[in-house]
């Protein structure tokens, strides 16, 4: 059974250098854009946390030995569905399944808890990871916003 893809109502794109100072900017940009959906505090904080994890992964792991840009696309789809794509052109992930295991970290020396993907999958309804070694990683996060009226 195939469902008709949801129509995009609004959309924004961002591109910024993979610098850790931009982690906060990325979260604030997403929450600012999504404010038009009037999300409740829990929803916006879940989304910000998931975005922060994906962007941090791109900076810490994707561009571990190189520099480059992080691309972010946010779409508001029909039915208050939120689609967020975070993309890097870094080193990619050899084994996505392993990377998504709770407590696995590719950077044990840097006090990374290994919970990035666990947070993404817990706080968002749908998480997709597409990665090619030496080409980069794309993370797509999706979730429907209930808003303040259904808190």
């Amino acid at each position: 059974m195939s469902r008709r893809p949801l129509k995009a109502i609004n959309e924004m794109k961002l591109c910024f250098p993979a610098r850790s100072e931009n982690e906060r900017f990325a979260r604030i940009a997403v929450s600012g854009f999504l404010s038009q959906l009037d999300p409740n505090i829990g929803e916006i904080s879940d989304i910000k946390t998931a975005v922060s994890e994906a962007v941090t992964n791109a900076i810490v792991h994707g561009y571990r030995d190189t520099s480059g840009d992080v691309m972010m696309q946010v779409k508001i789809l029909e039915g208050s569905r939120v689609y967020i794509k975070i993309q890097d052109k870094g080193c990619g992930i050899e084994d996505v399944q392993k990377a998504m295991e709770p407590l696995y970290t590719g950077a044990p020396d840097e006090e990374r808890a290994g919970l990035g993907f666990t947070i993404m999958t817990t706080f968002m309804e749908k998480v997709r990871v597409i990665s090619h070694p030496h080409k980069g990683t794309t993370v797509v996060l999706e979730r429907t916003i209930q808003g303040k009226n259904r808190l």
Partner: protein
Amino acid sequence: MTEIMTMGKVTAAYISGDLDHHSAAQIRSEIDREIADKHPKRLIIDFAGVTFMDSSGIGLIMGRYKLMSASGGDVIVSRPPAYIKKVLKLAGIDRLAPVYDKADGILPREYHKEKEVTPIEQTTTQSH
């Protein structure tokens, strides 16, 4: 910004603002410097002023837990807001460090004295 103080054998670190991968590096080095200087038996990390936290905060707690337990000390997580509790719970942090909702009796007392707001005396007289 992190305010750190040690009273006897207890060090308290009051973190404020966003706690992410970017800010964690500095917070970590400030706390570790205090621990290296004062050798406390207990480290209390206070989250009351933290406006955002992702898994970098978990890494910060886990790292300090390792550091403190290496010298027989412990770590307490104090006053996390609801959105931070969710991340703490997901990580099962209470297995390493107990989480306290109230700071009464655990945080060094002098800090609260300092922070207490002295009521402004009503010196202005109203004339009609």
